[in-house]
């Protein structure tokens, strides 16, 4: 009983911490995205609310909260309402196992990495639900695209993840991080890092892989019909997904919390935000791929490379050990 109480308290604290982190992180990331895009495009970005527009996203969030929640006619109501929740829940769960520092993690599961990958697949289901339930052709097209894309990109993502897991010999995030105390995996597995970042960008539906919500083709893709807070949750989930993908990449390749002088948490967050910056940089540089090219790219380039990387890794490991 006492075990459950202690564990319950830990989980409860963790949940509160995670929810506040998700909210603050999303607010910060949206501001960051605006600033990064603005400066790439020679403009200042938001400047009015707060210092350099730092509070702009809070104002926007308030606006979104105040907006009417429109439920269009003829939608599949239950699914329409459930989709944002299904989108958001797995995102929360993933935070359970992310080690921010040797001590700051909620649950050090021995299948932690798998948990993140397993729950991230639910995002696809949520997108499909949203697109289907909206009863809108643009939404449905976006949802179908999203599914094909995510299925195609999950394979190379898991394959590259496998090569790292092979090296570490464990699915436990903290073990993977501790093994990089001396040399970060990015120096051992540069190709895997590259593939992982590409697939991660695709998994989070970000440009140049943002075809499920390609605004010039599908208006807003799967969330065309969502308004107000429901739309905001999709937005929140998108940015939190970015954070999770970057966090996993940090755990896998950038040595997690390792780094001199600064406290581990700071190092971890620094690395995560650096990767997020990279993803934003992609978004504001590249045009969007076409749907079939995207799939071709995954099958013809990413998967062979990931397989090759995995085989070479296994081979080298066998030789070394």
């Amino acid at each position, binding site marked *: *009983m006492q075990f*459950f109480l202690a564990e*319950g308290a830990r989980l409860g604290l963790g949940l509160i911490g995670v929810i506040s982190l998700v909210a603050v992180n999303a607010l910060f990331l949206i501001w960051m995205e605006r600033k990064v895009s603005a400066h790439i495009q020679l403009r200042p970005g938001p400047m009015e609310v707060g210092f350099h527009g730092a509070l702009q996203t809070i104002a926007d969030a308030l606006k979104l909260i105040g907006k009417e929640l429109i439920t269009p006619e003829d939608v*599949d109501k239950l*699914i329409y309402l459930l989709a944002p929740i299904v989108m958001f829940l797995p995102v929360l769960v993933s935070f359970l196992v992310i080690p921010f520092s040797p001590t700051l993690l909620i649950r050090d*599961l*021995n*299948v932690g990495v*798998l*948990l993140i*990958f*397993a*729950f991230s*697949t*639910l995002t*696809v*289901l949520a997108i*499909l*639900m949203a697109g*289907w339930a909206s009863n809108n052709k643009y939404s449905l097209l976006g949802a*179908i695209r999203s*599914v*094909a894309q*995510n*299925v195609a990109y*999950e394979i190379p993502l898991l394959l590259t993840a496998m090569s790292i*897991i*092979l090296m*570490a*010999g*464990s*699915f436990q995030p903290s073990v993977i991080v501790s093994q990089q105390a001396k040399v970060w995996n990015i120096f051992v597995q540069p190709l895997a890092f590259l593939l992982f970042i590409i697939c991660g960008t695709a998994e989070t539906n970000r440009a140049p892989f943002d075809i499920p919500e390609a605004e010039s083709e599908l208006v807003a893709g799967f969330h065309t019909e969502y308004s107000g807070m429901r739309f905001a949750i999709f937005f929140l989930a998108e940015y939190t997904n970015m954070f999770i993908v970057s966090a996993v990449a940090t755990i896998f390749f950038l040595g997690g919390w390792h780094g001199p002088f600064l406290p581990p948490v700071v190092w971890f967050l620094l690395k995560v935000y650096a990767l997020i910056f990279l993803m934003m940089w992609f978004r504001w540089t590249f045009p969007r791929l076409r749907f079939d090219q995207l799939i071709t790219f995954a099958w013809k380039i990413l998967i062979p490379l990931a397989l090759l990387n995995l085989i070479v890794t296994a081979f080298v490991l066998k030789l070394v050990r």
Partner: protein
Amino acid sequence: MSELFSLAGLSFLMIVGMTLGGAFIAVGARNIFHNVLGLALSLFGVAGIFLFLNSPFLAMMEILIYVGAICIAICFAIMLSEPLYRPRPPRKPIKLLGAGLGAGLVFVVLAALVKKTAWVPAAARSDDWSVATIGHYLLTKYALIFEAISLILLVAMLGAIVNAKNGRGREES
């Protein structure tokens, strides 16, 4: 009975409820998309049961493969099926009865089996879920299953490729 009201017990009830409820939606709902979602919910519950059986790895795989991949694939298939605005054929009581009887029979057989089996406590299994162990098992104890699954997947993939090739006749674009 009292242990059902502990934290663990409550979560167990929840998971069983999810599994059963999902299963009922999966067979009972008239909207085919709802059926898939019910299936996903049910499989999610099954993953939870695996957790209770102290197999987190299997639980995660359940979610990753069944919820994440299979259900999505089914959704894909749905997109190719009859449009939903078509009036659905009415349910025939005889069919319903038959299905119920069949399911009941399977349940009875399974229950009898469960009753008869002498269950070994789970503690006898190791707690080691490292990649090496899993790999070892896959190539020794479960080699046949592993190979069989690979074969099935290969056949499925070949079939998919053949279907895709003949399907639309848009190879040129």
